[in-house]
């Protein structure tokens, strides 16, 4: 009995390494996907530093900083959930995941408030772009990158919320538990990655020119 338990533990561990490697590989593609946008940002920030500095001053510094804090703290809860599920503490796992999920939702809510503000400030690129007389003519490029990159990040946040909701459902029904804990770690990797992307986006858009 104990021997079969040991064998199945080993099989499970091998399986966990395999799925984690799969997620790391996927995250590598994600880095390169955002990389195309970062390349554009680097090029144009180098070409038009004043426009980017002005763009940074249009950003809501307080809201952006709050969002950064929200994501960083949510990642802590996801990390605790990983430990908790291995220890078989279902209630703690669910509580941590739910907290992280709500913080992710709050992040998106704050992002929506910011977007609404930009719309009423006429900062959305395109025909309605009207930043005012003294504005730098290249500001539109900055705002384009801002909407593109934070929008893409928000899309990844939504995917993350769906994935964590799936996790919570699995933990609640018992499909994910001490005998099969690895989905928490694997989706946790994704959550941390989306968090890390924001940690880079935050200085690029909110701290530039400040």
């Amino acid at each position: 009995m104990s021997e079969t338990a040991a064998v199945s533990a080993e099989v499970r561990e091998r399986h966990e390494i395999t799925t984690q490697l799969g997620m790391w590989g996927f995250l590598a593609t994600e880095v390169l996907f955002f990389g195309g946008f970062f390349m554009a940002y680097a090029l144009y920030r180098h070409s038009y530093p004043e426009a980017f500095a002005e763009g940074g001053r249009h950003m809501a510094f307080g809201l952006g900083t709050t969002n950064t804090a929200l994501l960083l703290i949510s990642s802590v809860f996801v990390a605790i959930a990983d430990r908790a599920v291995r220890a078989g503490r279902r209630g703690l796992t669910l509580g941590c995941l739910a907290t992280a999920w709500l913080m992710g939702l709050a992040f998106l809510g704050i992002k929506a408030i910011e977007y609404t503000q930009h719309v009423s400030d006429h900062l959305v690129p395109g025909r309605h772009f009207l930043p005012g007389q003294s504005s730098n003519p290249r500001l539109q490029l900055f705002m384009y990158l801002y909407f593109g990159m934070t929008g893409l990040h928000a899309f990844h946040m939504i995917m993350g919320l769906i994935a964590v909701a799936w996790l919570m459902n699995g933990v609640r029904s018992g499909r994910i538990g001490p005998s099969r804990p690895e989905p928490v770690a694997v989706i946790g990797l994704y959550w941390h990655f989306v968090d890390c992307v924001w940690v880079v986006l935050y200085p690029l858009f909110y701290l530039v020119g400040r």
Partner: protein
Amino acid sequence: MSTYLDRPTVRSWLTTLDHKRIGLLYLFSITFFFTIAAAAAAAMRIALLSPSGDLVASDVYNRLFTTHGVLMVWFFLIPAVPNVLGNFLLPLMVGARDVAFPRLNLASWYVFMAGGFLVLYAILFGGVDTGWTFYTPYSSTYANGHVMLMAAGVFVSGFSSIFTGLNFIVTIHRLRAPGLTWFRLPLFVWGIYSTSIIMVLATPVLAATLLLMGLERAFGVGVFDPRIGGDPLLFQHLFWFYSHPAVYIMILPGMGVVSEIITCFSRKPVFGYKVMAFAILAIATLGFLVWGHHMFVSSESVFAGVVFSFLSFMVSVPSAVKVFNWTTTLMRGSIRMDTPLIYALGFVALFTIGGLTGLFLATLPVDVHVHGTYFVVAHFHYVMVGGMVMAYLGGVHYWFPKISGRLYPEMLARFAALTIFIGFNLTFFPQFILGYLGMPRRYSMYPPEFHALNVLSTAGASILGVGYLLPLIYLVWSFYRGRPAGPNPWKAKGLEWTVPSPPPEHNFDAIPTVTEEPYAYNPEEDP
């Protein structure tokens, strides 16, 4: 005994998680896309029979070469060896029961088909005239037609590459049989491994590039738009950051196939195994650093041009090493000129011509002369068709007995291989001369002095067409009516030949333990 081909219901095929069946699903799909893309090429060659472009209007001609390029690149060449032969063979070669993530594998096929149908829809309802490269600002601002749909199709199909690449990398790392160390892997596996790395790292950049182009087209403003300070050249940099490594997605697995065939049909271990493995990795790595050679005449700085030129020359070193090692493997071997070897030798010869003419193009002053001419067209067709398609067909013939459990008619197959070789050279060699003389690519009309060479090229294309039709017919026939092959008709080494043909659904009754070095052939003992 039961095989993976039992239970022939449509439902069981469409819901299969078996890597062998998914490989065959890809085989049918890419053959379908190849046929459409080849028909577009045939229409172009017929149109070019006359200098005045009587057959099709320029607008239609532009749509034909876009259709040809998009389908051939993303829906045939890129998935050909990895997704068909790789899916079928990789788990067998590493001694596993399946790939690491079977459901992701099936998902990759569905994603591929979704992308393919988007592209087909775009072609049927008006087409696209941007060329397969989607250069801005033409694609984002001026082009009529379904640019968005076609780009969306390519974007979606990219996920199929990413899923497959991920699956293969994890499979090779995690599911190798006991004793199958990295330096005992068949070179085919090394080829697939390097290809997978490129798929995983380069494809997302294409996705980002097409997304930026699509956003610009949708909203009328974007990062490649000079009116707001954007730079259209950035599109080319990002596009070729994917598309040059993609060229190696299209050739590295072919190199793996050729290594398997040449060792088997000369009954010798491959010459310089480790060097061959490292050469594949070196080509994959250097492939990421040469994209700028597509922009020598697009306002790239001279300094950047010199650096990219130098790096492009570097790629030829590991490539030449491979050619020399294949030749040395053949030396004093016990050679049997069977169909797969004819294809493999064709690959070596044509790839060498394609590679050497690549050096002409990597040379800055020569490129100024031949850029945008038929010389470039001939160069990359020598690598893509002369190289990859030959390797793919060689591989399909080599592993056909394993896939189907049956043999094809050998003499007919040899005849078809030679027909393809002759037809190919007759089609594309004249294009080197045309390009050198200054005929630009992508025009439906040309000055009358180029007439004779164009007629020659079209004549070659018709021979090539017959050559492609033959295997399509006799392989389908052999699949049902061929002589039974037995598990190992070529007396080949490698784990895939230790299981019955066709293999059972679970591949191995017991996971094998590998004690042998790769390619343990001996030319003395076996004719």
